[in-house]
C-alpha cells in the first residue's frame, strides 16, 4: 500500500531491543537485538515459528511483560516518545488509546462475565471524556463498523453468545474504539476457520484505509503476510534474520529460513508424497547455538556459521538479511525454480 516511505518519519522505531526472562533455569533471551520501523499507515508483518519472540516483541513495545520479563536493552521510539522512559501512569494512557492490541483467542480475550458492549465501553470510558450513554452509542457504532449485524442487540450479548468470527470482530471493535495510531494484531486469525480468516483480514484492511492506523501483524502464516502486509520482519530464535518489502521477500528471499518457510507452504498445483518441512526444531532458548542460531537446521551451514554470528546486512534496496552464505542459497533457489519451470 505504502512503498514510498523515504521521506516519512517512522511512527514506531525499535532499535536493538533485548527482552530477557529470568526463569529458574536461567535467562531466556526471548528477544535479542531486534530492530525495525513502522511507518504511518503501513502494515508490518512479523513472521516466524512459535517461540521465536514475535509476541514478546509486541508485549515489550506495549510494556506489558510479566514480572519475570525485563527489557534488558535497546530503544523504542513511538510517535516521538521514548517508550522505555515513560512513567507507568502515562504509559497506561497510551495503551488502548494510541496503541492497541488484538489477540489470538477471541474467546479468552473477552471477559465472560461482561457483555460485549460493556467491554467496548470500558475502553471508550477509559480514554475519552464521554458519559455512559454516549459511550454506549459509540460502542454500537463501532460494532456496526466491524460488520456485526444488529449491533443494537449484539451490544448486550455475552461473549459466549457470539460465534468465533463475531467475537474477533468485537475484539477488533474494542481495540479500535479509541482510534489508535498503532494496532498490534497477535495471530488474529489463527483460531478462526479459513473463510472467517479471509473476512477478518479483509475487515482489517478496510478499517486501516478508513482510520489510517499502522498495523503490526504477528503471524506464523506466510499466507496472511502475503495478503495484508507491506513489509516483513522474519524472526528466528529471538533475532531478525531477514527484513524486506513483502514482494521482495517472496521473490528474492535472502535467508535460508525465509526460503524454508516458503517451501513449507503446501501448493495445490503440485503432487507431492510428503510436505516439506524445515528439519529440526527451534533451539532451546536457554541454550541457543553459538554463531548463527539457524545453523543447526540450515542445509548450507558451514563451520563459520557455527562459530561466528552473521550480521544483518543490506543485501538489496531496503532489504536486509543475516546469512554468511547467501550465494549458496541463491544457487539452491535457482535450481529449484528452474526445475519448476522445466
Amino acid at each position: 500500500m505504502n512503498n514510498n516511505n523515504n521521506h516519512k518519519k517512522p511512527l514506531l522505531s525499535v532499535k536493538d531491543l533485548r527482552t530477557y526472562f529470568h526463569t529458574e533455569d536461567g535467562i531466556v533471551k526471548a528477544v535479542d537485538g531486534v530492530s525495525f520501523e513502522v511507518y504511518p499507515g503501513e502494515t508490518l508483518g512479523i513472521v516466524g515459528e512459535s517461540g521465536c519472540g514475535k509476541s514478546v516483541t509486541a508485549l515489550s513495545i506495549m510494556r506489558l511483560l510479566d514480572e519475570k520479563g525485563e527489557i534488558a536493552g535497546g530503544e523504542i521510539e513511538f510517535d516521538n516518545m521514548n517508550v522505555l522512559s515513560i512513567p507507568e501512569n502515562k504509559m497506561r494512557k497510551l495503551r488502548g488509546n494510541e496503541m492497541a492490541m488484538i489477540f489470538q483467542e477471541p474467546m479468552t480475550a473477552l471477559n465472560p462475565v461482561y457483555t460485549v458492549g460493556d467491554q467496548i465501553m470500558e475502553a471508550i470510558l477509559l480514554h475519552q471524556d464521554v458519559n455512559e450513554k454516549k459511550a454506549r452509542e459509540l460502542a454500537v457504532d463501532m460494532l456496526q463498523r466491524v460488520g456485526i449485524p444488529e449491533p443494537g442487540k449484539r451490544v448486550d450479548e455475552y461473549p459466549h453468545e457470539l460465534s468465533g468470527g463475531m467475537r474477533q470482530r468485537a475484539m477488533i471493535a474494542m481495540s479500535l474504539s479509541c482510534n489508535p495510531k498503532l494496532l498490534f494484531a497477535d495471530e488474529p486469525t489463527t483460531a478462526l476457520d479459513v473463510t472467517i480468516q479471509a473476512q477478518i483480514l479483509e475487515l482489517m484492511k478496510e478499517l486501516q484505509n478508513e482510520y489510517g492506523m499502522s498495523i503490526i501483524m504477528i503471524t506464523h502464516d506466510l499466507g496472511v503476510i502475503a495478503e495484508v502486509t507491506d513489509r516483513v520482519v522474519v524472526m528466528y530464535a529471538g533475532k531478525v534474520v531477514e527484513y524486506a518489502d513483502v514482494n521482495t521477500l517472496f521473490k528474492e528471499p535472502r535467508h535460508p529460513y525465509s526460503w524454508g518457510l516458503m517451501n513449507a507452504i503446501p501448493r495445490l498445483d503440485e503432487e507431492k508424497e510428503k510436505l516439506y518441512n524445515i528439519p529440526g526444531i527451534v533451539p532451546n532458548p536457554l541454550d541457543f547455538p553459538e554463531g548463527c542460531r539457524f545453523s543447526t537446521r540450515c542445509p548450507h551451514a558451514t563451520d563459520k556459521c557455527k562459530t561466528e554470528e552473521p550480521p544483518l546486512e543490506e543485501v538489496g534496496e531496503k532489504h536486509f538479511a543475516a546469512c554468511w552464505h547467501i550465494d549458496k542459497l541463491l544457487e539452491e533457489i535457482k535450481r529449484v525454480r528452474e526445475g519448476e519451470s522445466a
Partner: protein
Amino acid sequence: MAERKRKSDLRKMMKKFWTNPTAVMGAILLFFFIGVAIFAPQIAGVNEFGDNYQIPRVSWSSSPQPPDAEHPFGVIGGRDVFYGVIWGTRTAFRLGLIVGLSATFIGVVVGSIAAYFGGIIDEILMRITDIFLSIPFLVAAMVLTTIMGKGLNNVMIALIAFGWMSSARLIRGNILQAREEQYVLAAKALGQKDGLIIIKHILPNTIFPVVVQLTMRMGNYVITAAALSFLGVGAEPGYADWGTILSYARNWMTMLDQAWFSIVFPGIAMVLFVLAWNLVGDALRDIFDPRMRT
C-alpha cells in the same frame, strides 16, 4: 436495555434456584429463621427490665424447671429457655453475618493483593496466612477472648481474626488462575489500572466460590461461638445466645434427665441453622458457577 438483559439473567438464575429441591428446603429454613429473628418480640416478648438481649430471670431457684405452659422450653439457671432460643436467633444472624462478611472481606483483600502482585508481596502475605493457620483456631479464639474479656463483640473479633485465612487462600488460588487469562492482558492493553483490573475483571470471575464458602461457613461460626460460650469464654451469662443456654447445662451434665431441654432446644436450633446455610450454599454453588451458566 442492558438492565433488562441483566434482569432476565437474574430471573433465569432464580428459576434455577427454585426448581432445586435442596435449595428450596434451605431457603424455607432460612426464611423461617429470619422470620423468627424479626418477630422475636412478638413471639417471646421483651425484657421489661432492661436489654432485650438479656434473658429475663423468671426464677431465683437454681434447679431447672422442665417445660410447662408458661415456659414452653423450660427454665434453667433461672432463665427462660424459650426466650433465649428465640432472641438467640437474632444473635446467631448478627454473629454469622458480621463474622462471615468481615472475615471474607479481609481474606479477599489479602488473597487478591497477594495473587495479583505476586513475588515478594505474595510471599509475605501468604506466610502470614500460614502463621495464622498454624495456630489451632479454637485455642487461639479462647486465648484472645480471655485476654479481651467476655462478651459477644470480643467473640466476634476473635472469630474474624482467626477466620479469614481460608478465603484468602481460596481467592488467591482462583486469581492465580484467572490472572493468566487473556482478558486480563487485554484489559491491560486497553490501559486499565491494576486496581480496577482486579475489581472489574478478576474478582467477578473468581468470587463465586468465595460466596459459596461464606454461605457454608456462616453456620459454622455460630457453632464455634456456641462452643466458646459453652467453655465459658463467650458471651456473658444470661445473654440471649444459643451457646450461653447450652453452657447452663454444664452444671447438670451428670443429671441430664433434669436439664435435657437446655441442650435439646438450642441444639435443634443450631443444627437447623447450619443445615439451612449449607443447603443454600450448595444450591448457590450450582447456580453461580459461571461455567455452568449457559
